[in-house]
Structures are given as structure tokens and as C-alpha cells.
């Protein structure tokens, strides 16, 4: 598996890693910065990570996915630092013999990452900045 916290997501690197002679399917999910949050214009985003724990947690999720489905390769990349609208911030990639396993594993990985990996997003608006989801 390829698990990294990076400054910029390199799609080619992820795709090259995922290719395999036994894989008939390569599934990629890319999460990007939206220009709006709660109808307000987002100017910029910043991601903070608990680096060591985030890597361990992502590795744990990849292992869980490999137990649940028969997968060839798994990639999880997440950025840290400041990002502008439109930039990719997370990439989940899964290759498998047939498409169903890679679709399902890809969805599982992004859903679990959003719930359990210690990474925090701060949204910057024209007039203020907010840690996303911090308050009910």
C-alpha cells in the first residue's frame, strides 16, 4: 500500500502505483476544495494533521479494506497545509481484478477516513475562519 501525507497530490504517481497485471479495475476518488460552505464563499482552506497518528490510522483502514475485499493495491494520499479552491486534497485509489471490489473499497476508505483519521480542515472566508465540524 502507498499511504502518504503530502504537499501536493500527484495523480500520475498514484495511477502508476495502482497498475498491476492482475488488476482489471482501477478506481480513483479525488476530493477537492469547494468554493462554498453553507452558502458562503470559501477563499482558502488549510489542513492540519496529527502526522504520525494519521498515517497509522490510514494504514489501519487500508488493512481493513484488504481484509474485506480482494484487492491488488491501495493508495491513500492526503494533503496538509494551505489549499486553494479546486485543488485536490485527498486521493483514494484501489485496484482489483473486478470493478465491484474496487468501487466498494474506495467508498469504504473515503467514508472511514472522514470519520476517523486525525486531520482537521479550516475554512477561510472573507471575514473569518472556522474549524470545520468542531461545533454541533
Amino acid at each position, binding site marked *: 500500500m502507498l499511504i502518504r501525507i503530502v504537499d501536493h497530490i500527484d495523480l500520475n504517481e498514484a495511477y502508476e502505483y495502482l497498475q498491476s497485471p492482475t488488476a482489471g479495475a482501477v478506481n480513483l476518488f479525488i476530493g477537492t476544495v469547494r468554493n462554498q460552505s453553507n452558502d458562503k464563499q470559501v477563499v482558502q482552506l488549510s*489542513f492540519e494533521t*496529527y502526522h504520525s497518528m494519521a498515517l497509522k490510522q490510514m494504514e489501519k483502514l487500508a488493512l481493513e479494506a484488504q481484509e474485506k475485499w480482494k484487492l491488488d493495491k491501495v493508495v491513500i494520499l492526503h494533503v496538509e497545509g494551505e489549499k486553494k479552491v479546486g485543488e485536490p486534497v485527498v486521493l483514494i485509489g484501489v485496484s482489483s481484478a473486478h470493478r465491484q471490489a474496487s468501487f466498494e473499497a474506495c467508498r469504504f476508505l473515503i467514508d472511514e477516513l472522514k470519520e476517523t*483519521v486525525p*486531520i*482537521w480542515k479550516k475554512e477561510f472566508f472573507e471575514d473569518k475562519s472556522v474549524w470545520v*465540524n*468542531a*461545533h454541533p
Partner: protein
Amino acid sequence: MEILLFGITKDIVGNDTLHLGDNASIRTVSDLRKWLLAKYPAMGELRSLAIAVDNRFAEDSDPVHPAAELALIPPVSGG
């Protein structure tokens, strides 16, 4: 003991680490949580507050060793 702070907990405390000194009354994760909420009521207003011990999500009954790496995990929002 020192606790690593992330996201909004850094803003609440005004620093990226929190020093507990030799606080002998804090033996478990539950003790630590009670101490934090008493000292920083704003932490009680968060959607959730997990505590990590040595890079793992800890249970309330888990012991807190002085040598462990402790961290506060406010609601995550990656992806």
C-alpha cells in the same frame, strides 16, 4: 505530562501543547477528560473530544502513563 493539541483545541488553549506538570490525580483517560473540561469549559461545547494515547484512540478507562504520547482529537474534518 504534556498533551499535543490540534485544530480548535489549540485555539481554546492558546498553544499547541498543554503541560499538566506532575498531576498525580490524573491516572486514566477519564480523569484527564474531567480535568480538561473543568479547566477549559469551551472543550465541552465541541461536537466530540477524543483522546489519543500513543497514536491510538483511547477508552475512558485506559491508563495515562507519564511517558505516553497524549493528544486531544477534536472532531476530525479531513477529506
